[in-house]
């Protein structure tokens, strides 16, 4: 809670002004019964018409003051609340951007989405309300009690008798509320996740006619959410009736003892009227009070969830290394030195003792069976994950010592699954280099053999793609993501089986175009034909290097390689 609410700090002055304005309003409200008493005692009872009018005018003036204060408060408190949530959202998003890929595993995408929107909204609402009405209710209660004490301490005592019980009760309820509402937010995470899966897999769902099945799966998470929400809300529902009842009992006590005092002649009637009036005001504030408790509990649950994200310290990427060694030397050189790797949370190594070297401008083909660790190997180079053992040397400098940003800037990565973002084709290619001129974009797309297809689209490079975009074929997506990587003009180009959806002719043209590239290339491929064109081939199996050398060498020395070649009818058996 503290962590999250520290984001109010920059706005403490506007918050302070808002609170002052609210207090001003409150003051007016509290003064009213006092003035009323004056009207009754000094005016009506004392038969003084002038006093009645005078105090009436004061009442009127105060009302105006309160109104103005209220309206201005609206601006200040909503500015504070919105700025707070804006900063908080940004801070969360920035934190999330700095997560390592392993940290993402801790929170599902769906849960991060909930935290960034739903949870922020919960907390923001509470802040806004506390700057405006929430604090008002407790303050009104306290104020009413103070005023009641001023009027008649003995009678006022009746009003606070129940306070300790209520206090303990409320603390208990808040604790319960926080845990229940925390559960509710978790249920929203689940709901979001099933929903996201449904949207991503819509074709699969339709193809296998799993509409009803998915609906029932969703039904389950939705009804869990319902049950837990109902449980949380119903528990909180005890607060108001209990508070009201205790308060009303106090009111009756005031009447009883007040009448006793009147009978004894120690108290004027005006006092009792005033205290009864204050007591009724307190009652009125109490339903708001109950409301506050509920919101507070809910916000606290949300705040805790956000703090969970914000407090992650060790699992974020440190973008710049503390050690400022000179920039890497030897363009695009790369070496793996006895690298082993186990996924965080995994128990068996995915790569073990992998060593190889790629010279500047060389082309290395990486081959191996499905699940051998090829993609994992590539992902270690831009340090998506850090090696468990050994080291990766990029341009003669330990990858660990590289500035992360600089390291990634020299790498053009084409992932196995091409993923484009909502935006135009040009936007997507420019991911490689945001400042690239159109000429450079065109050069990249031509090299990636996608230019002609783009030109065929009615809107050309402005065609919208991504989630909200047109239907691109698998091959088109792959080539766009190759263009994106080429635009990077990195020193190392990594293609993770990124030509699988290309037809042979296009693929050939692509490789030809890529042969002019200066960059060191790492190509994961299934095709011997592609591997043949490489300077060296790294064959891995179950995370270990089983062969390393040229095509001819491997044909001679590696049985596995030969088997692969035979499977593709590249050599005679």
């Amino acid at each position, binding site marked *: 809670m503290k962590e999250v609410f520290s984001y109010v700090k920059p706005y403490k002055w506007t918050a302070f002004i808002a609170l002052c304005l609210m207090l001003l309003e409150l003051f007016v409200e509290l003064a009213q019964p006092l003035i009323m008493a004056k*009207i*009754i005692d000094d005016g009506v009872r004392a038969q003084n018409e002038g006093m009645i009018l005078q105090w009436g005018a004061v009442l009127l003036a105060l009302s105006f003051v309160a109104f103005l204060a209220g309206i201005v408060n609206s601006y200040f408190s909503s500015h504070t609340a919105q700025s707070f949530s804006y900063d908080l959202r940004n801070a969360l998003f920035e934190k999330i951007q700095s997560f390592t890929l392993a940290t993402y595993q801790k929170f599902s995408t769906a849960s991060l989405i909930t935290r960034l929107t739903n949870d922020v*909204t919960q907390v923001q609402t509470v802040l806004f309300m506390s700057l405006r009405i929430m604090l008002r209710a407790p303050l009104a209660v306290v104020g009413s009690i103070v005023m009641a004490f001023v009027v008649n301490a003995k009678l006022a005592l009746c009003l606070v008798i129940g306070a300790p019980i209520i206090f303990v009760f409320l603390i208990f309820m808040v604790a319960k509320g926080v845990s229940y509402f925390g559960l509710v937010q978790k249920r929203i995470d689940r709901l979001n996740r099933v929903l996201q899966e449904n949207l991503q897999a819509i074709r699969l769902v339709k193809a296998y006619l799993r509409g009803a099945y998915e609906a029932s799966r969703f039904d389950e998470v939705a009804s869990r959410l319902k049950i837990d929400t109902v449980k949380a809300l119903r528990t909180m529902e005890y607060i108001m009736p209990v508070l009201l009842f205790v308060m009303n*009992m106090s009111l009756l006590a005031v009447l009883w003892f007040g009448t006793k005092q009147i009978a004894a002649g120690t108290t004027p009637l005006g006092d009792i009227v005033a205290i009864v009036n204050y007591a*009724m005001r307190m009652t009125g504030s109490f339903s708001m009070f109950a409301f506050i408790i509920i919101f507070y509990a809910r916000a606290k649950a949300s705040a805790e969830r956000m703090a969970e994200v914000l407090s992650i310290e060790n699992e974020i990427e440190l973008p710049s290394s503390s050690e400022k060694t000179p920039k890497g030397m030897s363009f695009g050189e790369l070496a793996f030195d006895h690298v082993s790797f186990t996924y965080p949370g995994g128990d068996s190594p995915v790569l073990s003792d992998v060593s190889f070297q790629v010279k500047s401008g060389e082309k290395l083909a990486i081959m191996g069976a499905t699940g051998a660790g090829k993609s994992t190997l590539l992902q270690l180079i831009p340090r998506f994950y850090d090696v468990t053992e050994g080291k990766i040397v990029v341009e003669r400098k330990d990858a660990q010592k590289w500035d992360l940003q600089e390291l990634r800037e020299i790498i053009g990565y084409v992932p196995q699954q091409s993923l484009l973002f909502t935006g135009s084709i040009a936007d997507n290619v420019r*991911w490689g280099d945001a400042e690239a001129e159109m000429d450079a974009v065109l050069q990249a797309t031509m090299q990636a053999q996608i230019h002609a297809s783009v030109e065929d689209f009615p809107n050309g490079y402005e065609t919208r793609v991504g989630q909200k975009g047109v*239907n691109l074929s698998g091959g088109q997506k792959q080539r766009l993501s190759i263009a994106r990587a080429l635009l990077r003009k990195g020193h190392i180009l990594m293609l993770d089986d990124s030509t699988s*959806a*290309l037809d042979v002719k296009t693929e050939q043209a692509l490789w030809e175009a890529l042969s002019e590239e200066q960059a060191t290339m790492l190509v994961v491929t*299934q095709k011997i034909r592609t591997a043949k064109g490489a300077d060296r081939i790294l064959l891995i199996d179950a995370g270990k290097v089983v062969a390393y050398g040229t095509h001819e060498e491997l044909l001679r020395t590696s049985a596995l390689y030969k088997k692969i070649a035979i499977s593709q009818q590249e050599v005679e058996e």
Partner: protein
Amino acid sequence: MGFFQKPFGYEPILTQDDVKQAVKKKKGPRATDWKSTLLRLWKIVDEQRALLIIVLLLVMVSSILALLGPYLIGKMIDTYVMHGELAGLGKGIRLLIGIYALLAVSLFLQNYWMIGIAQQTIYRLRTSVLAHFQRLPIAFFDRRQHGELMSRMTNDIEAVSSTLNSSFIQVFSSVLTLTGTVIIMLSLSPLLTILTMTIIPIMFWAMRWITRRTAPLFKEQQVALGALNGMIEETISGQRIVKAFSQEERMKEEFREKSLRLKRTGFWAQTYSGYIPKVMNFLNNMSFTIVAGIGGVLAFYGHVSIGVIVIFTEYARQFTRPLNDLANQFNTVLSAIAGAERVFALLDEQPEEEAAFAQKHKLLGQVCFQHVYFKYEQEAEAYTLKDVNFNVEPGQTVALVGATGAGKTTILQLIARFYEVAKGEVLFDGVNVQQIARQALRSQMAFVLQDPFLFEASVRENIRYGRLDASDEEIEEAAKRANAHDFIMKLKNGYDTVLAADGREISQGQKQLLSIARALIADPKILLLDEATSSIDTVTELAIQEALDTLMQGRTSFVIAHRLNTVHNADIVLVMHKGELVEAGPQQKLIESGGIYAQMLQSSSYHLDE
């Protein structure tokens, strides 16, 4: 006054015209929109009529009790307290204890049930949206961001939910309390009552001024929130790419922009809706002043008793409080409407139409395209498929080849009827696809998609997706045939390993193996394989080739693959080029004719093992 126009540098969002338009629209379709939105919501709530009636009765009881309290206290002050009569007071207090206890119980019960009603409604709303999603055509999803749609199911529905929880009871009890209060006030002093009510027209005017601004702002706010949600979902799902291209800064920038838009609309919506309690408070104070001031004068001349004034000030408060609540509720209801409208907009999306004459049809496996034209968007000029004709007999294996973007996947998607043709006909056993119920059609097909998708569920459940009633043995059998069994056994918990959302534990190729196992278990009449083995190494591919061959036996199969040797068993090869079918026929014939296919084969180094 400059502050109010551009406070803290917030640019105004609504122009004077917007507000005026909101006024005009109110008379037009807008007003009916509100009404119909509320009415639709009501229809869902209404299914719990019986419980609702009980709640309403309880609200009535508690409203009466709440009014009775101060009334009795006023009376007691006048008759007992003033004269210090303890005996009479004691009786009165006992009565009040009973009343307050009853009040507490009825308050609790009405909320208890109302929460149930509200959440049940929300639940129904949510599930009906998802059920509707399942009926919507694929084209609907093509153009929408996942996160945006998700926002409607959470953030928008949330707005409806919080309103339903409280507003219903509030509105009803406010109206009741208001009526009751006015009656009692009238009985006490008609003059003071009329004086108190002078604030109503002012209130009405003020509310109109405010809601004209908040209503459009609420809507805008939900839209901004949806856009933000969309961006978050995309960025986090694509985090690997964001990192690879070190686009974090740009993403943050973009996020800040969208976040700022939400902040701006949020600021104005909140500020304006913040007016409401303040205005009401002011009117509240005014009425207090009126009653106290003028009442004082009246009491002075002996027209009313002091007790009446004391009670009256309380009733004046009782009178403005429900008005205040109503005003606030009105605002909340507006925000709920903004959310509900977006949810209902989804429900209003046209589902995949099923022709009335569509029926179940047991497929034999013959597939025929007759002059099929197709484009993904109606506005698009160029067709993605142009005049495609072919005929496939039951049990035949068809290979689709051609450059990327030639329309191969599109053909498969039309066979599965993910989209409707623009012109021409797709026929199954001579029956137009539109005459076959989608359900029946797809239940006889299995589709292995280009991008394998796995659910965050166990490996077993992921395979079982192909046929829900498949036994564990059948699943293992399918996995073995798809060559997936070995790697599955190496996973932490074997078949019970729960796969992560991004499927990190297993490689792309392994995902494809699982997808194939999923299709193997489905036992379809028609099999559609779209690059089913693209990420699988060739040795494994050879190993599962046999399984695929058996799978294809006796079924009509359509196969897209770039490694031409994977399609060497095809009976028919369809060669696509820029949306047109340029060559079709048995493989051998195409090779002999020396056309495009023959050239493709030559350019590739793959040789056919004849």
